[in-house]
C-alpha cells in the first residue's frame, strides 16, 4: 500500500520507494517533495492530468536524468548509488513508442536483451514465452511497422519484461489505442501483477483504468494530492468514485 515511509528498506523485495523528491525546470517546480512507496506485488495507478509531473517522475525513475533533492529506490537499490543494479531490476514502457519500426519483433527483442547482457539463447527462449503470453508469438518475424498500435504496445511490454525485472513502470501505455486494445492491456498488466507478483507503477490520466483493488496516487502540479488504496483515497476526499475523487483532488487549483 502506498504510504509515507522512510527510505532504505521500503522497497526491499521488489518495490519502489520515493522520498522527498523535488525537481525544477528553471524556475518551474515540476515535482514538489514527492514521497510514496509501492510495495512488492502491488499495482499502483499514478493518476494525474497532463502536466502533473508524471513524465518528469518517470524520467527520474528511469535515470534519464537525476534530481538534486530526494531519494529513489528500485527493489532495494538506491538509484543514485547503485544505478546499474536498480536499472537491472526495472522494466519500462515509455509513453512514446520506442520500437525500431524497420526491424522485426525478434530483432527488437534481441537488441534489447543484448543491452541487458542476456545471452542469445536466453533472449530467444524468453522472447518466445513472453510473446506467447501476449499472443504475439506468431508475429515474431514481422517488421514492427506492420503491427497496429495495440500489438506494438504488447511487444513493448513483453520487451520490458525480457530481463525479468521485479518492477515494471508504464507511462501512459494506452495513449492512442482503441477501447478494446486499452482494456486488453489494462487486464494483462493486472494479471501479471497478480500471477507473477510484479510491482507495477502505471501512470495515466484516464480514471477508468484504475480498479478498486489498486493502490492510487493522485499527482497534480507536482504535488501528491492523495494516496492509498482506492477506497481509502475515496473516503479521505469524500469522492463517490475514482472520477469524482480525481476531480475533487485536482479541480480546485487546476484552472486549465
Amino acid at each position: 500500500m502506498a504510504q509515507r515511509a522512510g527510505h532504505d528498506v521500503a522497497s526491499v523485495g521488489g518495490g519502489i520507494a520515493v522520498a522527498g523528491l523535488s525537481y525544477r525546470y528553471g524556475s518551474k517546480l515540476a515535482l514538489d517533495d514527492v514521497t510514496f512507496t509501492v510495495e512488492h506485488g502491488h499495482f499502483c495507478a499514478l493518476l494525474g492530468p497532463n502536466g502533473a509531473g508524471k513524465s518528469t517522475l518517470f524520467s527520474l525513475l528511469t535515470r534519464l536524468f537525476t534530481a538534486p533533492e530526494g531519494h529513489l529506490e528500485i527493489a532495494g537499490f538506491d538509484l543514485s548509488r547503485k544505478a546499474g543494479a536498480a536499472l537491472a531490476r526495472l522494466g519500462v514502457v515509455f509513453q512514446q513508442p520506442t520500437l525500431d519500426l524497420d526491424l522485426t519483433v525478434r530483432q527488437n527483442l534481441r537488441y534489447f536483451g543484448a543491452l541487458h547482457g542476456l545471452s542469445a539463447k536466453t533472449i530467444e527462449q524468453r522472447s518466445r514465452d513472453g510473446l506467447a503470453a501476449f499472443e504475439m508469438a506468431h508475429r515474431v518475424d514481422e517488421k514492427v511497422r506492420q503491427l497496429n498500435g495495440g500489438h506494438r504496445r504488447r511487444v513493448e511490454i513483453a520487451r520490458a519484461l525480457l530481463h525479468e525485472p521485479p518492477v515494471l513502470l508504464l507511462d501512459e501505455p494506452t495513449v492512442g489505442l482503441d477501447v478494446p486494445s486499452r482494456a486488453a492491456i489494462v487486464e494483462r498488466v493486472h494479471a501479471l501483477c497478480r500471477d507473477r507478483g510484479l510491482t507495477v507503477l502505471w501512470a495515466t490520466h484516464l480514471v477508468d483504468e484504475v480498479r478498486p483493488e489498486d493502490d492510487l496516487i493522485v499527482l497534480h502540479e507536482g504535488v501528491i494530492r492523495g494516496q492509498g488504496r482506492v477506497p481509502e483515497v475515496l473516503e479521505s476526499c469524500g469522492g463517490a468514485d475514482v472520477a469524482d475523487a480525481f476531480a475533487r483532488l485536482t479541480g480546485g487549483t487546476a484552472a486549465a
Partner: protein
Amino acid sequence: MTPGAATYARCLWGILWREGLRFVQQRERFVAALVRPLVWLVVFAAGFRAALGVSIIPPYETYITYETYIVPGLVGMVQLFNGMQTSLSLVYDREVGSMRVLLTSPLPRWFLLVSKLIGGCVVSVLQVYVFLLIAWLFGIQMEPLGYLAVLPVLLLTGIMLGAVGLVLSSTIRQLENFAGVMNFVIFPMFFLSSALYPLWKMQESSLLLYRICAWNPFTHAVELIRFALYLSWNGTALAWTAGSLAVFLGIAIVAYDPRHGMIRRRGGG
C-alpha cells in the same frame, strides 16, 4: 552483482549489430556517403589539377597528381560526415525515444556511448574501404600494405570524429539544426584543413588561416590517414588525434551524464 565481461561484450555486440542492421537498410545513405567524395575526386580534382601543383612533401617521395593528394582528405570527409550523421541519429533517437531504451541498460552510460561510437565508426570504415576500392579502380593506388596499415588509424579517426558529433548532439535540440551543423562545423572543419591543399600552400596565403588549420583536429586526422596509407609514421598527427578523442569524449560523457543532464531540457509534464 557487478556485471561481468560477458555482459559488456553482449551489450557492445548488440549495439554494433543494430547499427549494422540499420546500415544495411539505409542503402541510400551508403550511396550518398560514396557519391560525395567521388564527385570531389572526379570533378573537383580534375578541374584543379591544372591549377594546383603539389610539390614533394612527406610522406610522398615523388611528384603526385592532385587526385592522389586529396584521397586521404576525402577518406577523412567520409568519416567526418559519418560522425556527424551519427550525432544526427542520436538527436533523432532522442526524439523518437530509442535513446531512452538504450539508457535503460544497467551498464554505465559512458560504455553505452562508446559502444555507439564504435558502431558508427565501423560503418564509416566500411564506407572508406569501398571508396578506396573505387579510387583504386580510377588508378589512384596507395602502397598495398597501406590499405592494411590504415585500418587501426581509421578506427581512431572515426571514433574521434564521432566523439565530435556526440558533443554536438548533446547541444543540438532538434533535427532541424543539422543545416547549422553543416555550415558551421562540417564545412569549416573540412576546408580549414589539409584535406584539399597542403598546409604550406595555406601558409603562403594567410598565416592566420594556416594557424587555424594547424589547430584543426580534422587536419591531423587526415594527415594520420595520409601517412598510414604510405606506411609512414606521423607521431604529431597521432598525438593530436588521440588527444582530441580524449577531450571530445570527455566532454560528451559529461554532457550525457544524468547529473548534468543535457537531456533534461526536453522535459515536460
